[in-house]
């Protein structure tokens, strides 16, 4: 009872203070100078990204080199984990040998099938609308990586490999994404601009939809690279422990 009374007193104090403070703060009528600067540099200005989503235009346009190096750090981490799990050809074949089998009840399998399709659609929309709505390449790619993770959890990793998505293919898709990011960063140099330049070089609109210039390309390639990179790591992590013990020659 004593604890309950204390809780109620704390709640009342918090509510009163928040009501009092919210009356004291007047609604904002004008733009802050900082907000004006962001709007000017993300949508309205001549050298802005022409994207209504200010965060994406900060991340990929005028803070772009920073994001490029962040991407590089993430991919070095993935390369590190790939090296850690390096297998020779025979061992890689051995790791792939196995039958997909369903160990969970039927409804779970059906829901997984439906959900995987929905996740693919939703992640694509997160990535490709990154210049219009909150979201972007990394977020979309992370959502995309949930789909193979679900398949691994429900149908085992052999189902994924039997349907053609093995580690090599995932790494190839990841490399295509990385190459795309690098090319998009380098294209302005060929056309007489500076590296990672956006606006006068890339188209700002297509069919009336704001593209944000290079943002849509960066988002798409980052989406491929992050999704496939995570998929490769998940495939490696889901190799059964007995097989690894055999490869490494561990005796109990």
């Amino acid at each position: 009872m004593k604890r309950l009374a204390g809780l109620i007193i704390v709640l009342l104090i918090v509510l009163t203070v928040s009501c009092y403070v919210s009356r004291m703060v007047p609604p904002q009528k004008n733009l802050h100078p900082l907000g004006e600067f962001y709007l000017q540099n993300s949508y309205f200005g001549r050298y802005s990204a022409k994207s209504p989503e200010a965060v994406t235009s900060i991340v990929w346009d005028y803070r772009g080199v920073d994001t490029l190096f962040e991407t590089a750090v993430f991919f070095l981490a993935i390369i590190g984990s790939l090296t850690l799990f390096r297998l020779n050809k025979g061992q890689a074949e051995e790791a792939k040998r196995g039958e997909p089998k369903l160990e969970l009840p039927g409804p779970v399998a059906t829901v997984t099938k439906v959900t995987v399709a929905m996740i693919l659609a939703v992640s694509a929309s997160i990535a490709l609308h990154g210049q219009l709505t909150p979201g972007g390449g990394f977020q979309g790619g992370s959502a995309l990586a949930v789909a193979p993770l679900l398949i691994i959890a429900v149908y085992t990793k052999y189902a994924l490999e039997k349907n053609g998505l093995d580690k090599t293919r995932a790494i190839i898709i990841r490399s295509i994404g990385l190459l795309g990011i690098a090319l998009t960063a380098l294209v302005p140099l060929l056309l007489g601009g500076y590296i990672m330049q956006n606006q006068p070089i890339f188209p700002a609109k297509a069919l009336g939809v704001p593209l944000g210039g290079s943002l849509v390309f960066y988002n798409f390639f980052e989406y491929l690279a992050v999704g496939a990179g995570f998929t490769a790591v998940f495939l490696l992590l889901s190799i059964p422990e007995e097989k690894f013990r055999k490869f490494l020659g561990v005796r109990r």
Partner: protein
Amino acid sequence: MSVAFLLGAFLVVLGGICDLFGAIGLLKFPNFYVRLHAATVGTIGGAVVPLFGVSMLALGAGFPHRYAVAGASFITGVIVLLVAPAGATALAYAAHRSGVVEWKPKVDHLREARK
């Protein structure tokens, strides 16, 4: 205030109440399986219902791009509606198979059906 707005607000409040009941059940219920039920009340009642409520609120309100907000929350609601029962089923199944959870049934229909 339109009907959709009021209905949406009602659903959001209902979701809050479901979340509270789910939390109390998660703390107070005696064993794993009944607690799992309380957790599912928390996800279906406390996440799906308010998400549908938010989509109705957005349809009833007059701000720009309201169809985008309504559609996104509706799709998220449908995904959670599908996934939460499947996750609970998988958890209960795995706990029953592996036998890590204490299991003292009053009636065991599964065993009777398997006989």
